[in-house]
């Protein structure tokens, strides 16, 4: 009973933490735009909580580079389970146009496991919302809940 309720809560209250992992700001501002009146992801119970210790979902924008790869790992480690990672934008998914640059390691999945890839350069706010919804669907499946 309580377990069911908690699962309900998990689906209805994904708090996100956003980490700009070397993005060009294009995806960053689209992530922020999601919070704003036109898109308002708080409708889904999503709060941009800013602190990995409180967050359920890690939104990563941008490529991983040599300096921030351990930061990304650190943040991921500080999130309590269950947690999900969404890579946003071409850079987050694969490194985008910067794949071949000397300081770039590549996509987010080089460092931490990624649950959902949101393509786009930059990813549209709608796509980011889709991404979170997709992550929740994945969680639902994991929890064995019927959709």
């Amino acid at each position, binding site marked *: 009973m309580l377990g069911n309720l908690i699962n309900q809560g998990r689906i209805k209250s994904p708090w996100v933490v956003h980490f700009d992992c070397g*993005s060009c700001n*294009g*995806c960053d501002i689209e992530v922020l735009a999601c919070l*704003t009146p036109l898109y308002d992801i708080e409708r889904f119970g999503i709060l941009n909580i800013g602190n990995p210790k409180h967050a359920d979902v890690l939104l990563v924008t*941008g490529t991983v580079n040599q300096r*921030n790869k351990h*930061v990304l790992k650190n943040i991921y480690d500080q999130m309590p389970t269950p947690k999900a990672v969404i890579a946003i934008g071409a850079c987050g998914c694969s490194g985008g*146009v910067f794949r071949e*640059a000397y300081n770039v390691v590549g996509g987010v999945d080089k460092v931490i496991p990624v649950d959902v890839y949101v393509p786009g*350069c930059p990813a549209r706010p709608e796509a980011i919302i889709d991404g979170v919804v997709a992550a929740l669907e994945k969680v639902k499946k994991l929890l064995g809940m019927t959709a």
Partner: protein
Amino acid sequence: MARTILPFGPQHPVLPEPLHLKLTIEDETVVEALPTLGYVHRGLEKLCEVRDFNQMIQIVERVCGICSCLHALCYCEGVEQIMGVEVPRRAKYLRTIWGELHRVHSHLLWLGLFADAFGFESLFMQFWRVRERIMDIMEATCGNRVVVSVNVIGGVRRDLTPEQCKWIEEQVAIAEKEIRQLSSTILNDYTVKKRCCGKGVLTKDQAYQLGAVGPMLRGSGWAQDARQTGYAAFGELGFEPIVEYDGDSYARSAVRFRETLQSLDIVRLAIARLPEGEIASKVKGKPQGETVTRVEQPRGELMYYLKADGSKHMDRVRIRTPTFANIPPLLAMLPGCELADVPVIVLSIDPCISCTER
């Protein structure tokens, strides 16, 4: 007095961008601020060796997603100078329109983030709501909300139809009305002024000597704006920079707020005077030579040094972004301020770390 050492960033809710500051504070007064950069350094200047000079447009656009259009503009102007390409007038006007729309969206974005930095969430929401109108214009006319990708060497990729021009004018008028509604809050509200006035003061001399650019410089009383050099269509449109004199965070936000309205006027003017004609001229051959070009980004003066050796790859693309120039003044402003003012002061330079580090 007891000290606290605070890691500020790279992941921090107030600064969406990864900049790390090691702040030493005493009773919340910052006594020392040491930065770490490099969290966004990709080394994309180096990519000119593997991408040809046309592909570099798409690369430099992604130096910074917020002012991508102006990066491309600056780069294209540089290459055009080297190759001696004459850009059609209509293309120049279109570049101006999109460039200024970019400035409007960037300034609105900044005004929102700035409001957020001092904890004024509803103001943040309102600025970003208005901004969506500009984003719509961008999407409708360029095919993308953020990275518009309209500049090519020799001109622009997309044209505006008369209907679109009319629609843009309508949207701009509405946006202006909505922005003006917020002016009393951002410029006159007691709590806002309490948080901005006198915070992060940069005197006129300091601003100049530390190499501040853009609204930082103009907020400290210097009437200097790269648009005065008359790139794109500014030579024909005429331009007067906006200046404030107090040199504090409030002055900078006032500069940006007034520039937003000014840019909307420029957009309207440019649409009104939009000449007929081609939107791009043919470009042949490969660039050879070197040049320096400057444009005014929302954050200040952007400078490109380009060197081409006659191959399809550029020899050197050197980008001096405005935030790169504004970081030293920031380091000079931080010591002595209060911890609560750190976000306000950091944001008041409108930091674009991805620009800075490239």
